[in-house]
């Protein structure tokens, strides 16, 4: 599973992207975030409040209950501020 981080999520995690092989407990967006928080202090800091981040799965906005598959591209980022 490919993970992408943007804006302050990226700077807090410390990397822009990584490829992970999550455990079986990761079935959806919410459980992915739970698991990611255990990977490093940076991940824990970036994702400590899931309400502060937005998630896209395969480049579409996704809710916490969105199911995940091994080949998905999952991006985690703050609310957008373009325009």
């Amino acid at each position, binding site marked *: 599973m490919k993970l*992408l981080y*943007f*804006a*302050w999520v990226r*700077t807090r995690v410390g990397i822009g992207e990584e490829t992970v092989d999550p455990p079986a407990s990761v079935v959806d967006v919410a459980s992915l975030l739970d698991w990611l928080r255990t990977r490093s202090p940076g991940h824990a800091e970036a994702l400590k409040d899931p309400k502060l981040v937005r998630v*896209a799965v395969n*480049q*579409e*906005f996704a809710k916490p209950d969105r199911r995940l598959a091994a080949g998905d591209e999952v*991006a985690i*980022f*703050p*609310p*957008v*501020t*373009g*325009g």
Partner: protein
Amino acid sequence: MIRVQREDFDVAAELAALSGGRTDIGGVVSFVGLVRDMAGGAAIGAMTLEHYPGMTEKQLAAIEAEALGRWPLAATLIIHRYGRLEPGERIVMVATASAHRDAAFDSCRFLIDWLKTKAPFWKLEDTDAGAHWVAADARDDQAAARWIEEKPSEHR
């Protein structure tokens, strides 16, 4: 048409391309967003726009398609820049052309309102108090929500 690019754009040429040679267009409305030198009381030296290549284009195309479905439009345009921008520089341009001005106004505002909350761009501001990521503005959410709650005004 949608474009995501680092370079500046020529508003005149874009507007000319939008309506050029057509005689069924009654009005063209455009919005051009610029970098301001002040934000929340702090002076801004420059701004860097990060985005999510791939998703950005998909989202902009979806927003444009939504506008084309809601209003009778002859043409639409969204251009959004990324990278480093200084105060006074253009960030974004949206424009719509229609036989009727109300459709052009409503759809142009819809494009920028939805873009502000749905297109994956993030602003990093360099201010005299240091660099910081711009926080999302609840007023942008309200502006976008308007287009969910209200039907577009009657087509003219």
